[in-house]
């Protein structure tokens, strides 16, 4: 794994505009960054990222089976009592799921270590699935990448296939919803809807704020149609706390991601996975946090926090890092395994799982050890190392 500087495509902003990628620059700060790329060998991709992703995904689903049968685990994950049976039922019915992203610390020299599962509202999808793919095609066509360069990225193909599989069986109307004023989230649902349409699935979009409730407790769209299935790019744990939350368990509204994803997007899954698979090469030691002082070599994370917010890190060398944010509540501790710097940047690997298939990665790099919303998206390529030359 190497970080290689490469000239930007001179027309990438126009290309971004052409395909509706409106958030390549966020609050005047660059987000899409193609002034460099990460080069991987095929073995690094297949052996170190793809295979562990599929294995961890299977372990995570097995863990859901255990959690839904345990009041104690539900308690540890701080799942509100009124939603527990509903979540368990959604798992027993195997309500279909679409996608998730695992975040890995990986530098090409040691096993990838799982930081967390983003299994409810993962983003950076469009840029990984589409714009990164287009970058590779363009740079290959311009001869800027070694001939035969590839990319670990069949995300879009997998999304279309997944929609073709699950959406046939779901109730209509089928809507995609996100917060009205978030350009990034709106871009992500526009992309997902595009993939669903390519699978031949009729569907619409709706602002999450525009969802209505009827007298008899069913969710409606702006035309007063009872929503059959809702893809919501909005955290389940926030829905639980909000005014309409109490209607969810009885409304017969199908959700994607389904309610059981609340168990996997929750950082409480990390200590449970560690307990069940202690010593697994891709897992970091983790435990539920009882409060108190954070010892050296540990990181504290709230059960729910997004974009690297509210993280406390106590490094082995005694340095302490802390990020702000709005999240509080119960926390976990995870053994500190800092990202490796490449030319002063800290890349975090987002490994995408669509359905049950590991199908691609997107890399976000930050100038800090904690990957936050300021992190830039940097593309990657699979480039075979030159053979026959061994420099010792």
């Amino acid at each position: 794994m190497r970080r290689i500087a490469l000239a930007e495509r001179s027309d990438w902003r126009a290309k971004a505009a052409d395909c509706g990628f409106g958030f390549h620059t966020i609050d005047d700060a660059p987000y899409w960054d193609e002034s460099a790329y990460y080069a991987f060998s095929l073995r690094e991709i297949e052996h170190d990222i793809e295979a562990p992703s599929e294995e961890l995904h299977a372990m995570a689903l097995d863990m859901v089976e255990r959690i839904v049968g345990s009041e104690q685990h539900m308690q540890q994950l701080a799942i509100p009592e009124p939603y527990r049976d509903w979540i368990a039922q959604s798992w027993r019915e195997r309500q279909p799921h679409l996608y998730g992203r695992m975040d890995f610390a990986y530098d090409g020299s040691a096993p990838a270590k799982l930081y967390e599962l983003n299994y409810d509202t993962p983003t950076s999808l469009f840029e990984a699935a589409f714009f990164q793919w287009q970058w590779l095609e363009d740079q290959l066509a311009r001869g800027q990448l070694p001939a035969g360069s590839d990319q670990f990225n069949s995300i879009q193909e997998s999304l279309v296939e997944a929609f073709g599989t699950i959406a046939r069986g779901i109730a209509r109307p089928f809507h995609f919803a996100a917060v009205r004023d978030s350009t990034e989230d709106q871009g992500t649902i526009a992309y997902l809807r595009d993939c669903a349409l390519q699978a031949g699935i009729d569907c619409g979009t709706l602002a999450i704020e525009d969802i209505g409730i009827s007298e008899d407790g069913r969710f409606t769209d702006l035309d007063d149609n009872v929503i059959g299935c809702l893809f919501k790019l909005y955290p389940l744990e926030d829905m639980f706390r909000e005014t309409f939350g109490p209607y969810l368990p009885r409304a017969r509204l199908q959700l994607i991601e389904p309610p059981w994803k609340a168990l996997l997007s929750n950082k409480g899954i990390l200590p449970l996975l560690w307990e069940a698979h202690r010593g697994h090469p891709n897992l970091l030691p983790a435990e539920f946090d009882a409060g108190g002082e954070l010892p050296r070599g540990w990181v504290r994370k709230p059960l729910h926090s997004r974009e690297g917010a509210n993280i406390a890190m106590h490094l082995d060398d005694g340095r302490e890092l802390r990020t702000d944010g709005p999240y509080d509540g119960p926390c976990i501790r995870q053994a500190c395994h800092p990202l490796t710097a490449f030319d002063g940047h800290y890349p975090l690997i987002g490994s995408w799982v669509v359905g049950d298939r590991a199908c691609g990665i997107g890399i976000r790099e930050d100038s800090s050890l904690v990957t936050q919303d300021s992190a830039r998206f940097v593309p990657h390529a699979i480039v075979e190392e030159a053979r026959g030359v061994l420099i010792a």
Partner: protein
Amino acid sequence: MKRSRTAALLLMSTAPLLLTACDRNQSREGLYTSVEACVAQTNDSASCNEAFAKAKQESLATAPRFANREECEARYGAQQCAERSDGNNHSFFGPLMTGFFLSQMMRNGVATNGFNSAPAFRDSNGGWQRPAADGASGGVYRGANTGTGMVPVTATPDRAVTSSRSGFGRSSGSRGFGS
């Protein structure tokens, strides 16, 4: 190759797709009781015939299975069930396909190549059902099993008077909520 063979956009893109202007793209989806009904609606006999044949073939694998004719007929009505074999000398009873789905992308009002189809069954109460998603052969999902459950089809959406809105979204921040 580890990447998608193609990655195109339908609606997000302002660029022409496949060299045709694509300002009017929609999809159509219909439940039809016969090829004739399908052709009358869509004026596309090739897609209708092909969708019917595919659905018919798929119905053998995805129809619900019953140990005897009586159980099947109780759910799907008299004369609506047939005996089948799973190929391992085990026979069972399943309902006859009574309709099929066709869903297709439209481009400039013209149906594109390729479509999705699925068998549909009518139960003894007159309701329509189709196989649940698990019955599909999609390779994205592990453990796709046969003999899956059926889900009801609602051709026309339910309507309900909305009493209030904005019950979700109050936690929203300026950057939204993706993670």
